[in-house]
């Protein structure tokens, strides 16, 4: 497995896409934190203010993770990959792991970078990271990015096309999860179980009517990712490469 991890690491970092994605994700999140800090008036800045940009970073990381596998299909390097290592499950698990680690690193740097930026602009005692909720809000970003990247790789493996995979991965959290609320009667209940909504509750607090606590929310999000990953592995093993 270490061999495969090394292989996938070389593959990921010998194209420009992950570098650009990391750069863009950090620029968007930290840049947004700076804007919030500079334009803030009335009341002291809190930890929450520094983390407003995390949604943008999540989008970029999702695209980066999906591209890591869809470009393999696009340029048929997936065939060269399966030629070198015919055990498809191991290859895809290794790729997912490498992408998830990168996503986690981007998430942590983005979250703490944003916090430091906002603190430097106008920080006070209200910005101290003290409670469990504060820590989840900042340090939890890496976990959410990592799990979201697993979902992206799984969707990318299933769809095999960059445009299709990216559309799904952007439209789902941005539109679908919110639009389900419009379904009469059961809409709100469905919304409560939507994976990215649940992941958001892990970061930003669960609120009074959430069905689960924060860590259960994260476990649920991870469960969704695991189910998709297993589905993508089954399909990739059955399909012609």
């Amino acid at each position, binding site marked *: 497995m270490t061999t495969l991890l090394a292989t996938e690491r070389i593959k990921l970092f010998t194209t420009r896409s992950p570098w650009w994605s990391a750069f863009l994700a950090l620029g968007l999140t930290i840049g947004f934190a700076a804007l919030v800090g500079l334009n803030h008036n009335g009341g002291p800045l809190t930890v929450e203010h520094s983390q407003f940009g995390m949604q943008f970073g999540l989008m970029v990381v999702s695209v980066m993770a999906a591209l890591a596998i869809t470009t393999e299909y696009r340029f048929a390097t997936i065939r060269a*990959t399966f030629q070198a290592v*015919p055990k498809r499950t191991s290859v895809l698990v290794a790729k997912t792991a490498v992408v998830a680690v990168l996503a986690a690193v981007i998430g942590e740097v983005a979250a703490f970078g944003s916090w430091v930026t906002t603190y430097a602009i106008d920080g006070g005692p209200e910005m101290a990271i003290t409670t469990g909720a504060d820590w989840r809000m900042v340090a939890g970003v890496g976990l959410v990015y990592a799990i979201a990247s697993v979902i992206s790789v799984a969707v990318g493996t299933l769809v095999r096309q960059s445009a299709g995979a990216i559309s799904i991965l952007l439209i789902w959290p941005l539109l679908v999860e919110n639009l389900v609320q419009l379904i009469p009667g059961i809409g709100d209940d469905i919304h409560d179980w939507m994976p990215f909504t649940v992941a958001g509750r892990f970061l930003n607090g669960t609120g009074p009517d959430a069905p689960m606590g924060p860590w259960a929310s994260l476990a649920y999000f991870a469960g969704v990712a695991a189910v998709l990953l297993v589905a993508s592995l089954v399909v990739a093993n059955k399909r012609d490469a």
Partner: protein
Amino acid sequence: MIEATGLTKHYGRTVAVDNLSFTVSEGKVTGFLGPNGAGKSTTMRMILGLDRPTAGDVRIDGQHYWDLHQPLRTVGALLDAKWVHPNRSARAHLRWLAAATKLPKRRIDEVLDLVGLTAVADKNAGGFSLGMSQRLGIAAALLGDPKVLLFDEPVNGLDPEGILWIRKFMHKLADEGRTVFVSSHLLSEMAQTAQDLVVIGRGKLIHQGTVDEFIAHATESTVLVRSPELEKLGEYLLAAGAGISDDGDALRVSGMDSPAIGELAAARQITLHELSPQVGSLEQAFIQLTGDSVEYRTVETGRLAPDVAASQEERA
């Protein structure tokens, strides 16, 4: 040795490969011949475990591809030179393949040197010409120093220099005792590179044997004779038991070789202007054998066949 038994592949209703059985013996160049769309690439993908056979089986030295440990050490393949990431350098492409096979870094420089890509190793593969991509593909195939090599249409689209280079390279690989299985729809190419042939058409096996057998099997050798006394010569030849056919101002003689014809003419004091043995070409043999199994046939009259014309009108 590559051994296919009853190999079959369906894509929906299309039968790409149909109950195909053949063997590729060790230490030789075996040509894999068939018209476009005959199922050559599909067969090669099945050998490499990329496509799952609908039925049948193919093994390399008795093992399935996916059971080989670090398969690049056993089988190297170049199926499509464009199977590289365009924004990854040639060296990086080889680097991850080497990492997957636990090969030392020095091996990358060796194969780059072998195919003459050292100077452009750090350039992105997307900017490579077809000839350069082909060289990179061969470098990748040779990376694990495998004893079995698969090439799918390696000379397709190459300039004469590239073709010559590939041809020499194949011979070199075979001389090193490797098993080379190379597909082509170019028969002349096969005649120059291969010793054995596996010929398929529409996914079915048409012939397996040596190149010489294939030609002998499919064509008859004749001798072309030109003479000012053609009629007289024809009569003598017929009398001697040869078959003749009129070929304008010459005679095509079958069933008698050129020395015998020359001696016969000398004995009868007939002047000959030409006496040339006509060896059946691989093309002729090929067309004769695969004639019924070409999938996409051109309309020879120059005018479209009625049903084709009708369907084009419908589209318009």
